[in-house]
């Protein structure tokens, strides 16, 4: 069964006091620094953490520094944090809702409401009788428990298939300098993920990546995974060279841009749930950024994944195949960040109808109000 997120409603989640928006298959998040693009993606990571091995509700909350960090600073009257997500799967319509707050005395996170619905059928509605008899049950979601989640396990599996990627090339180059984390999105474990892939799949993906990269990094002739004497995987690239057989270089010699491109293409080829990409334009040449939306559109049609991209790049938004519905504008205010699909913003709609492109307006509309203050900064 293939789930698609169709609507997201948030209350008091980090910078978002109140959000209620439709979600397309491809989503671009734009907004000034610190407007909450990463926090928006973090909602989906939170759902993933609920069901991932070694995860669970309490872990997911603590990983983020506790309820007081998760709860919107702008929240005043209504202290519960709420995530309400609607999904489509084949012909079914699903809903998962979780609301939680902190227990008054213990400060531990407790579930106030958990609700699962498929079409008209309510599969879960907590708190129920059992919860009333044993309040400790409200420190765990039904979603994370395999003995309870049977009627909606597909949904739990779907949340578990959400993948976040924010490759930090330094972590790939020097994995030994950093503690390895399971499924680490920043990439220290990226090479282990590649190494875990069956050899034939890996070879096929490398061949595809190489053929894609041939046009943009023509010097790169081969990519290979090699294990050193301690068994640690390394990414090797063979570059064209004046020596007749080329020269092999390990990943310390691949540039930031090359590593990030390989990572993006690799992850886009994986089958799975929604893909969350943090500023994929980083360290890439604008000419390459310019074709990223096209690249994703084609790869994702094949892998069938939904993709969420946070970006500051006008080159990326220059693509004429991007629909205003796919672009979510994040505007910080004292009452928390507002999220508006650009097709619902009257000014943007008018300007688009006037013939300007999304890139012309969205980046300006999502910029800080007073950038000039930065260069007026005085260090003494």
């Amino acid at each position: 069964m293939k789930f698609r997120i169709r609507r997201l409603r948030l209350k008091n989640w980090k910078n978002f006091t109140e959000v209620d928006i439709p979600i397309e298959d491809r989503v671009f998040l734009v907004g000034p620094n610190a407007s909450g693009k990463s926090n928006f993606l973090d909602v989906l990571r939170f759902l993933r953490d609920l069901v991932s091995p070694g995860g669970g509700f309490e872990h997911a909350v603590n990983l983020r520094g506790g309820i007081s960090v998760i709860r919107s600073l702008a929240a005043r009257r209504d202290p519960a944090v709420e995530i309400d997500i609607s999904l489509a799967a084949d012909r079914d319509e699903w809903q998962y809702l979780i609301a939680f707050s902190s227990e008054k005395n213990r400060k531990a996170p407790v579930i106030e409401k958990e609700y699962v619905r498929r079409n008209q059928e309510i599969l879960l509605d907590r708190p129920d009788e059992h919860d009333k008899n044993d309040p400790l049950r409200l420190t765990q979601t039904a979603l994370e428990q395999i003995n309870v989640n049977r009627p909606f396990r597909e949904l739990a599996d779907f949340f578990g298939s959400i993948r976040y990627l924010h490759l930090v090339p330094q972590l790939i180059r020097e994995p030994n300098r950093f503690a390895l984390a399971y499924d680490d999105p920043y990439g220290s474990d990226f090479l282990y993920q590649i190494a875990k892939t069956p050899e034939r799949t890996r070879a096929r993906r490398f061949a595809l990546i190489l053929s894609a990269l041939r046009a943009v990094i023509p010097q790169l002739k081969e990519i290979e995974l090699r294990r050193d004497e301690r068994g640690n995987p390394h990414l090797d690239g063979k570059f064209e060279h004046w020596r007749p057989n080329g020269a092999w270089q390990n990943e310390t010699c691949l540039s930031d841009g090359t590593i990030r491109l390989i990572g993006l293409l690799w992850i886009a080829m994986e089958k799975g749930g929604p893909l969350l990409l943090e500023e994929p334009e980083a360290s890439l040449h604008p000419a390459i950024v310019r074709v990223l939306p096209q690249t994703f559109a084609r790869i994702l049609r094949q892998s069938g994944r939904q993709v969420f991209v946070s970006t500051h790049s006008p080159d990326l938004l220059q693509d004429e195949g991007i629909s205003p519905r796919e672009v979510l504008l994040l505007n910080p205010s004292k009452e928390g960040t507002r999220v508006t699909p650009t097709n619902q913003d009257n000014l943007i709609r008018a300007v688009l109808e006037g013939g300007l492109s999304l890139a012309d307006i969205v980046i300006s509309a999502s910029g800080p109000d007073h950038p000039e203050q930065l260069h007026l900064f005085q260090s003494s």
Partner: protein
Amino acid sequence: MAVEGIVDEAVAKRLLATVGVSPGLIIGKRGKDYLLKKLHGLNSSARSFPWLVLVDQDRDPDCPPALIAKWCPNPNPWLCLRVVVRAVEAWLIADADGLADYLGISTARIPFQPELLSHPKTDIVHLARLSPKKEIRTDMIPAPHPDSPKVGPAYSSRVIEFVLNYWDIDNASKRAPGLARTLRKLRVLKNKLAHDHP
């Protein structure tokens, strides 16, 4: 060369490859307004360096010579400024056999005089709707919403694929006189280049 976007870039590269010159520096790819703003600067450098500049006429009521006179009244000898009638997609539709082959549709469906089409880009999207290939339809056709863009999510990528692998320029120039003139102009410039800078 200087172009409006990535589709035009692919077309311009094929044009230059056909006449046998390399594209060199590629400027623009930020839309038509940007290109027109840079035109004065490009023309200055065309005193000594050859430039191919492709601009779409789009819905402008003026004809190409009038537009050239307006945008660049004193073109330097090395400037090859071409205004494509309506849009560069017209030149692609002009290779009816190639486009029919790529989309998997009948040649009879392809408009015969593409430079008379008022929205050749929309026409390519319409032709893609007829394609029996689901991937092509998914990539090229926009979602059915009133505020959708004119083209599908991977439209440019598909058109570029066509330009690079299917587009027969000689065949296309038979049905697109503007394309034929552009090729002639480029060949003249190339010969002049060989003569002046052997």
